[in-house]
């Protein structure tokens, strides 16, 4: 036999007691919860002890994000602006996408046809096959592409990613590593290493010689646009100090004389290539 009202009184006793009980709300800005060590819910970039961002724009986080929510941009080791993200949000894929979601027949992508136009797809596939499609050969394939186009077109990278079954972010990250250009540019890029080992081994005089030879200072481009000069402390390991990188190739150890000779060689080769191009055209 239940006495009516007793259950209600039991509940009211509970709430009444809780009226005086200590509260469990976390007063957020004043008292911050201690997150577990494994907590990976933070949405900011981590700083190192020197106050620099620890992020190296390697795109690995963007790669593993399953819903492709990460859209990031930054500067690679050469100071080029690099970006990884879903382009279709902003441009060409949007409209057909919307059509398809609505169940309507979609127009082909506006830019889809340009993939093969912009780059020579069949040539690239031959190159890839030549390296056996191995992931280790990625840098060599990049070199070949850059040799041909002067930079790494995004379409080529996409094609490499597709053909070699390497994730796009990895391909793109590798392309950002050293010496590769992601934007069309004229001429060659000469990078002199300024790491400690190279400086001790004569990097300063090497830089002076190159400045003298090219007639430009660091960070500048010659008037005809053929040569640019810059410095970096990440060109090569100290074993080949002092080192110079011309485009993607790293040379070293070099003396000032050898550097002048190297430049002269490249100029000759360039002239020959220009002459051949002239004949063909």
């Amino acid at each position: 036999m239940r006495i009516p009202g007793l259950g209600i009184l039991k509940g009211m006793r509970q709430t009444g007691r809780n009226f005086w009980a200590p509260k469990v709300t976390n007063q957020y800005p004043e008292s911050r919860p201690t997150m577990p060590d494994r907590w990976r819910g933070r949405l900011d970039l981590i700083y190192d002890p020197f106050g620099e961002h620890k992020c190296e724009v390697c795109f690995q986080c963007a790669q593993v994000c399953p819903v492709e929510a990460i859209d990031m941009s930054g500067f690679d080791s050469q100071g080029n602006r690099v970006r990884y993200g879903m382009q279709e949000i902003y441009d060409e894929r949007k409209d057909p996408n919307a059509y398809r979601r609505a169940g309507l027949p979609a127009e082909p992508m506006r830019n889809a046809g340009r993939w093969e136009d912009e780059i020579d797809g069949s040539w690239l596939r031959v190159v890839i096959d030549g390296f056996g499609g191995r992931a280790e050969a990625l840098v060599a394939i990049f070199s070949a592409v850059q040799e041909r186009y002067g930079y790494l077109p995004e379409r080529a990278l996409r094609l490499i990613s597709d053909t070699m079954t390497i994730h796009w972010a990895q391909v793109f990250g590798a392309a950002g590593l050293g010496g590769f250009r992601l934007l069309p540019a004229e001429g060659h890029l000469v990078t002199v290493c300024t790491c400690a080992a190279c400086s001790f081994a004569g990097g300063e005089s090497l830089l002076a010689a190159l400045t003298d030879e090219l007639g430009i200072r660091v960070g500048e481009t010659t008037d005809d646009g053929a040569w640019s000069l810059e410095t970096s402390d990440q060109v090569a390991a100290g074993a080949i100090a002092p080192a110079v990188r011309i485009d993607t190739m790293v040379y070293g150890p070099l003396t000032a004389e050898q550097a002048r000779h190297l430049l002269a060689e490249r100029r000759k080769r360039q002239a020959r290539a220009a002459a051949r191009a002239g004949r063909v055209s």
Partner: protein
Amino acid sequence: MTAEPTIRDPLEIERAEEARLRVAAGLAPLPRSGGEFAGFESVGLPDRPPQTDREQEVYTLDEGEMLVNMGPQHPSTHGVMRLVLKVRGEIVVDIDPVLGYLHRGIEKLCENATYTTVMTYVDPMDYLSAMHNEHAPAIAFEKLYGVKAPRRAEYIRALVVELNRVFSHGLMMGFLALDMGGLTPILYGFINRDEVVDLLSAISGQRMLFNFFRVGGVNFDANDEFFSRLGTWRAGVLKTIEMNERILTDNEIFRGRTIGMGVLSGKEAISLGVSGPNLRASGVPFDVRKAHPYSIYPELEFEVITQSGGDVYARYMQRVAELKQSIHLIDQIVDKMPHGPVQAQVPGIIRPKPGRAYAAVESPRGLYSVYAISDGGPNPYRFRMRDPSFISLQAIPKLMPGRLIADTMAVMASFDPVMGGVDK
């Protein structure tokens, strides 16, 4: 409702009929009548002719009936679902659940994802039991790939899954009360949930969408921080649950509204495909953990709990009993936890041999199963998920006719559907 006049000019009837047809064919906008009650009838009718028998049945109104759209934006539809209620005054005549407002095509997305990334897609399905959502694909993929998770990994899996069940059932008590107008139990439920979720974030790094299970193991081992938090939580877990019990279980108003309400017999429940606590509340002892044991459940001691009532109160009591059973299971698992690795040697992108695998787990809402087909590629060829709340939802139109609008909410909350899972 004012009755329409029965004797009318035939020409007027014809005109009205024509106008209705034009509306049905989409040629004319819905008429905007004035404030008279008859005007209500036209609003809410679908703007196209009914297609199926059932639709005809629901959307044809008799004298004095009207349609009420409950949702997609409504305080108590547990997410975005629309219930079209056909009511006669306050009495529900028929219900048509309209789904799809949260449909994300997760099955299709998973068919385009690798086996590892599937785990992240299934998390937000039934967001109150994310661990169970990951458990079923993990088992299925392990079957496909022919790898077994280490024993410690299986124990950790069972542990987190039972923790997840605890907070899910605890929240159900709160939601049920909230849908009946009780404000407090939901907050006590959330106290418990917050503690469990902190615990789970100590082991997985995330609070809600854990992404913790891997093919062949789990992402992290349970560390000291986790176990120390688990001990603290275990000491106080029954407190919040008992608070809710004191407020609800003996409350006369609560009992008056739930006992005898929405009675689902065992036979009906089986026919409707209702599973899990809802089925057991109808007296059918079917628990996947016992019926088709997976993981380490054969090694644990527990009984299948059933209730005899089959009504809302029985479903509530079933949740409470299972919650305590889960805590009991957690104790056993922690006692028996072996040492060893937590992840088998499995590459990041796996390509299982062509084959098929079916795996089912007991989620807080019932039988949650995965049917995966591999074609040898890195993505599942077909990835099918059976979400229990999707199927249980069919019981609501069966139970409601003749009841009041207010009971719709109570009955629906007693089935504890989660729209993320229903809409996939």
